[in-house]
């Protein structure tokens, strides 16, 4: 890999950008992700996760076994909004105007 190698295909993030994030103090995959968008695309870091861990290891000396993978969140693969929705009415999801009547927030 040279510094122009694309590490995250979804967001087109190259090795150089990842090194810049590490130089700012990033020590984990998720630190790098939030600074660069690496791993935020459709594959959700399935491709770049280990590549980034290797780069962090190479740059900081933190051992690979201490470098956690990215934080996985649902959905594991793309899902249509209407498939996720269950068409009940919301009760934990509030409305902005309702809040303004109650004051604050």
């Amino acid at each position, binding site marked *: 890999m040279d510094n122009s190698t694309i590490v995250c295909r979804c967001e087109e993030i190259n090795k150089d950008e990842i090194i810049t994030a590490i130089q700012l103090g990033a020590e984990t995959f998720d630190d790098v992700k939030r600074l660069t968008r690496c791993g935020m695309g*459709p594959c959700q870091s399935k491709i770049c996760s280990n590549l980034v861990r290797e780069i962090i290891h190479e740059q900081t000396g933190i051992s690979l076994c201490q470098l956690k993978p990215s934080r996985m969140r649902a959905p594991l693969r793309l899902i249509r909004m209407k498939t996720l929705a269950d068409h009940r009415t919301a009760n934990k*999801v509030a409305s*902005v*105007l309702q809040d*303004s009547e109650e004051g604050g927030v």
Partner: protein
Amino acid sequence: MNNNYDVIIVGCGVIGSSIAYHLSERQKHRVLVIDKGFPLSGTSGATQAWVWVHSKTPSWYGELSMYSAELYPFLERKIGDVEYKRTGGIAPFFHEEDRKNAEQLAESQAEVGIDIDVLSREAALKKEPALSPEIVGATFSSIDGNVNPFRLVELYIKAAKKLGVDFSFYNPVVNMKKQTDQYIIETKKGEFRAHKVIIAAGPWSKELGDMLDIQVPIKQVRGQILVTEPLAPFLKHTIGGLRQADNGEVLIGYSKEEVGYDKRSTVDVLQETANMAIHMVPSLANVNVVRCFAGIRVMPLDEYPIIGEIPQLDNAYIAVMHSGITLSPLVGTLMTELIVDGETSIDLNRYHMGRFSHLLRNKML
């Protein structure tokens, strides 16, 4: 390494980093910012990042939010492109009886200079054609917008660094003590001393307060957000509940759960959030969800920001609030005035922590 500072800020989220940057502009103090993790790993990195004003009530709180929103264009000129967009904000309503409340809101906010239009169904749909035809109206204000929270915090930090602020990440504070005229901050990476200390640790401020025998009157609230695949631009405004980011993703969510520091995502809230998305913008039914995320936000017990001196503790300050993204430019400015000049250009009396003293006396916390 010299571990003595004039000011130590604990917490490097959007509030801590903004205070650090604004203090550094004055070039009066040696400043250190300590964070237990890495910036954006807590609340500030798990938000839709609205810069939201118009439905903040009562009007004195709306006014504070408005002043902060007005600072964003100037901030951007100083620290760089934080993708701030004053899109205008729309809060749709679905029941005719809400129109009266919307009109009352417009009237009370007008007193402080926040312009709100109460839109008819047709006017709202004309403004934002993607909205559901089932709405009966909406409130609209041009002052609302949004920002990229990752860029914002990163650029606050970079600008502050350039002006000489020190940062220490992955460095939890273990204990804080007051010793005559200085604070001793014990951390995982050693001991630091400062004349003034500022707690800006969002939901984690409670534990820091405990170290100084101060009860910080806050609770933790979890918010869960859905992220769609990137879509061609189709939402022009920041909508109460969702917004489209620069890269085309739509961020959706307005949930609040009191579950302590639990950051997990839960299926029930994700489903409800998907319901809300389709309810407000029906065309979202057919788009793909790429990810969800959850963040812990701080909620002061009366829901209003806590900004200013910590009562009964000289040279200790606190800045914790729910809407840190909206308020960060103003809070950074005002905290800097308080620390450098000893007084603020906007009266912060209402936001002083002393307002909770009756709760503290009655041990209701």
